[in-house]
């Protein structure tokens, strides 16, 4: 399939896919045991959002490191695009997580380490953009935010892996058990919907990211033309 054809078809396929996923999440998959009422359905949305937020973080890191090596402004555009999406998805993940917490345990915030990790990721993204706002020189802005991204990435493992080990977690263990291993205890229909949603959200991220980078590329070439 040519790239042009892909560009045209992909958003539509993605749209249909997501609609199917959403419908299936509510009507096809059964509610999980141990959860209050229908609240388990949030897993189909909350976890993929958190996953995309982390994925965006990794994309941002790769782009940042590449920028620091090659100083290609396009890499900086890529890093910023990933970070923008990361911010959006970590906000979504925090909100859906919070709503779920309200239903399950009666309060919006419980200081569960995984909840906190996503919130901190959100803070990192916010700080990333705050930094960018404060630097008018483009080359310097790219360098400094790339440096911060690397620094943040390096401290993240402590938050994600070490802290939960030390603290008891409220987080449902259906996905990740206390020892950090992935366990799929979901019934098969739930599993289908879950993975479908995961792929859908990843596709959503990929699509929006590509659009953002394409836009940046156009802006850059226009600026170059104006210069000469």
């Amino acid at each position, binding site marked *: 399939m040519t790239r042009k054809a892909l560009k045209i078809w992909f958003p539509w396929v993605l749209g249909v896919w997501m609609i199917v996923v959403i419908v299936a999440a509510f009507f096809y998959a059964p509610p999980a045991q141990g959860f209050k009422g229908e609240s388990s359905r949030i897993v189909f949305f909350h976890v993929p959002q958190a996953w995309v937020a982390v994925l965006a973080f990794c994309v941002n890191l790769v782009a940042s490191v590449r920028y620091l090596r090659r100083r290609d402004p396009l890499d900086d555009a890529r890093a910023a695009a990933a970070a923008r999406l990361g911010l959006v998805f970590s906000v979504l993940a925090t909100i859906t997580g919070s709503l779920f917490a309200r239903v399950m345990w009666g309060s919006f915030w419980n200081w569960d380490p995984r909840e906190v990790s996503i919130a901190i990721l959100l803070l990192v993204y916010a700080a990333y953009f705050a930094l960018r706002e404060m630097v*008018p020189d*483009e*080359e*310097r802005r790219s360098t400094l935010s790339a440096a911060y991204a690397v620094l943040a990435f390096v401290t993240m493992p402590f938050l994600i892996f070490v802290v939960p080990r030390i603290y008891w977690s409220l987080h449902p263990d259906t996905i990740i058990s206390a020892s950090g291993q992935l366990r799929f205890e979901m019934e098969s229909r739930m599993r289908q919907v879950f993975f479908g949603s995961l792929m859908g959200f990843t596709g959503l991220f990929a699509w929006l990211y590509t659009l953002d980078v394409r836009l940046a590329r156009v802006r850059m070439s226009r600026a170059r033309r104006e*210069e000469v």
Partner: protein
Amino acid sequence: MVLFAAMPEISITFDRVGKRFGSRQVLANLSGAIEPGQVLVVVGPNGSGKSTLINIIAGLMRPSRGEVAYRDGEGTLPRARWFEYLGMAAPDMAVYEELSARENLRFFARVRGLHRSDAALDDLLETTGLPRRERDRPVATYSSGMKQRVKLAQAVLHAPAVLLLDEPSSNLDEAGHELVARIVQDFRPRAAVAVATNDPREMAWADARIELAG
């Protein structure tokens, strides 16, 4: 006044250099070279980008477009090492106000890995015309002319192969201007010298000129 033994001869080329700050294009498509034995003078009205160009040549700023290269006869030097061969004085490059002139020079010598005796540093301060009794007082107490002399001393301390001077005679009286002229003459034979200025006396030193429109 200075020893050139340790420094190689460096030539600098800048190719199609441009710099943009947001939507403002400060420099565009500038090419040129600074060779040892040559003095390049950069002229232009205030805000025309003289200091920006000097900063880019010094490696303190990255150009938006184009490249700057330092060559020492064996090949190109990586940007991380330019500062070793570079001496620079500029209006926005100060010395430490809490330290005295002597302490400043002592610090900069040590940080550059030079072993200069106090006597040698004192000689250097002598040639810049800084009064003896001031040398141990904190720089914060100096007049702007005296501060400029210390800045110049700092710039030539390590007998650099490349000398960049941004408005060197600012804040200086006639004697001060002669000091700058003497420094440029001393360095001209072996070093690559660039001066950014609007002073016609300094423009007269030029072997090559770049005019910035602003």
